[in-house]
């Protein structure tokens, strides 16, 4: 996927502090053309703030954002020409028709004519309702109108903030197909989400954010591998069980900052798959009541545990 020319988006040392509180801390990453880049992290991790800095809604405290070689802060007119975005919900003017909305946005860009408006309307399949007032649209239709306006200026980079919020499964499927078709046309996409499964299906590369920092960045499969090998245990008597587990040196207890997002009576350990059966037998012979043993699916939480628990490696 790596293109030889300059990246579509280059973020360098981007940080933002509000009232001495660091919201986003020294981010650096690149997005190349045709790439679908995922931005993953729990709510409040600083994803939205970062995205707003990318499109000049928030002025960064330091660092630079370059889009197609143009600095967003210094030269927003040039830089933002190449960006289409939906920040959070697709906000459009309710008192206008879809068409009038698109006209509004078209007038703010160069070289967008009526023909282009018609084109994007067809792309998002809104032809039938485009002249109705937006008030009467469903959420999905608004989403599509939002995408239509983002596509108006033939952007090189499309930024979608939580695009699947409020979509039904069918809508999500459509969106997925749509995103892939855009990427095939050479458009880069930046998609933020707090749902791993979504990012997994959509994106080639992801950055994982937590507390304003990127804690991991890379291909999604590579990251997932790190999350493997976790087992969740539940015991009748927690202390005894933990003590017994720890006797085996191959079993490592995981106590990370993201510990609190798991049920409190569950113990997470890292251990090779091969010794699970033996360990169960060993514990049972010592009279420890096992309530549940479960190999952890690589979810966002698990991935998180890995990353936050083993920061040194990340």
């Amino acid at each position: 996927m790596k293109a030889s020319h300059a990246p579509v988006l280059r973020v360098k040392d981007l940080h933002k502090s509000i009232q001495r509180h660091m919201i986003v801390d020294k981010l650096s990453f690149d997005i190349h053309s045709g790439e679908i880049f995922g931005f993953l992290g729990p709510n409040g991790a600083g994803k939205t703030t970062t995205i707003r800095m990318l499109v000049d809604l928030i002025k960064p405290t330091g660092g630079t954002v370059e889009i197609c070689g143009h600095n967003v802060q210094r030269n927003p007119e040039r830089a933002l020409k190449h960006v289409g975005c939906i920040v959070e919900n697709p906000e459009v003017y309710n008192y206008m028709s879809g068409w009038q909305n698109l006209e509004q946005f078209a007038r703010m860009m160069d070289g967008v004519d009526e023909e282009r408006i018609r084109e994007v309307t067809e792309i998002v399949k809104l032809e039938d309702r485009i002249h109705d007032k937006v008030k009467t649209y469903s959420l999905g239709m608004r989403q599509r109108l939002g995408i239509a306006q983002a596509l108006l200026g033939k952007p090189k980079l499309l930024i979608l903030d939580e695009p699947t919020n409020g979509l039904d499964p069918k809508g999500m499927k459509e969106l997925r197909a749509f995103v892939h078709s855009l990427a095939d046309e050479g458009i880069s996409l930046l998609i933020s989400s707090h749902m791993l499964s979504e990012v997994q299906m959509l994106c080639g590369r992801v950055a994982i954010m937590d507390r304003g920092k990127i804690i991991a960045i890379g291909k999604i499969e590579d990251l997932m591998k790190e999350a493997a090998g976790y087992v969740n245990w539940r015991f009748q008597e927690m202390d005894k069980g933990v003590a017994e587990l720890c006797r085996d040196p191959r079993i490592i207890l995981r106590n990370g900052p993201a510990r609190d997002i798991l049920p409190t009576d569950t113990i997470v350990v890292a251990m090779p798959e091969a010794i699970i059966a033996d360990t169960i037998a060993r514990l049972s012979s010592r009279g420890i009541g096992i309530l549940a043993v479960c190999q952890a699916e690589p979810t966002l939480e698990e991935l998180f545990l890995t990353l936050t628990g083993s920061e040194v490696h990340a």
Partner: protein
Amino acid sequence: MRKLPALVQNEVLKLWLKKRFVVIVLILFILIPIFTYAEHKVVSNHREHFADWRNQILQQIADLENTLSSDRIPEEWKRSRRVAVQQLQYYLNHDINPSEPSGVQFSREFLSNSITLFIPMLVLAMGSDIVSGERTTGTIKMLLTRPVKRWKILLSKLCALTLYVSLTIAVTVILCYLISGFVFGYGGWITPVLTGFRMEGAVIDSSSVHTVPQWRFLLMQAGLCWFSAMIVAVLGLMVSVLIRSTAASLVTMMSAIIAGTILSSMSSSWRSAKYLFSVNLGLTGYLEGTPPPIEGMTLPFSLIILAMWGAAGLFVSFRVFTKGDILN
């Protein structure tokens, strides 16, 4: 700069499609006939009681003088009445009827009565949510992520507001003329009107008093109305930039303006109140020669004070709008 007309077009269409202007025209359509009727009642009442406008003015003078002789009336009130007496006397001496009913005269009266409260209210009804409204609905994010500099966006909003202020005042005058003319006749364009009264304490300096045809007077009044409405619009824009909630920004501006009206009617001994913008809004009073709310205020003074408030408002709004983060 090439994009600016398109941006202004956007803002003008937004305001239009929000049906703001239609509401204003509707309000005028309801209010003007009511005032026309009231004025008609007053006129016919005078006709009944006075043979001639001169008798009416004479009586007015006599009544004012009788109140002047009362000790119970505060000195500040007496000041304005003394001035009124001198003015009426002047009209009488020059044989000019200050209020010959006609469509033009009614429009003139309507403007001078609405400059301090009604027209600012209309302007605010239109423009107080011009920025805060976009914040509340979140569309500001769409607006500011376009490849357009922020100051251009705010400037386009200001331009659109200016156009609508002009349109509002023009429509007010035209509707006044058309509706009241139906009752009072469509004449009165060339009726002479006295202007140029200057206040020296409680005495009128009549050395600069001269007559102008009523159409010219009306035009001058409308110009002054426009000026003070623009200042209100600019300050409304500033408040709209500073305060997120539309309701709060509307209330802030309205209370500032109403406070000004109250302060002016108290003609308080708090003399530095004359530096507040809302005390200075009644510019048309200077043309007619009504004594200013606070002694020492003149037309140039008020114009300068208002212009300074406007400049400060513009500075703050542009500064905050171009630098501020959009967090919600």
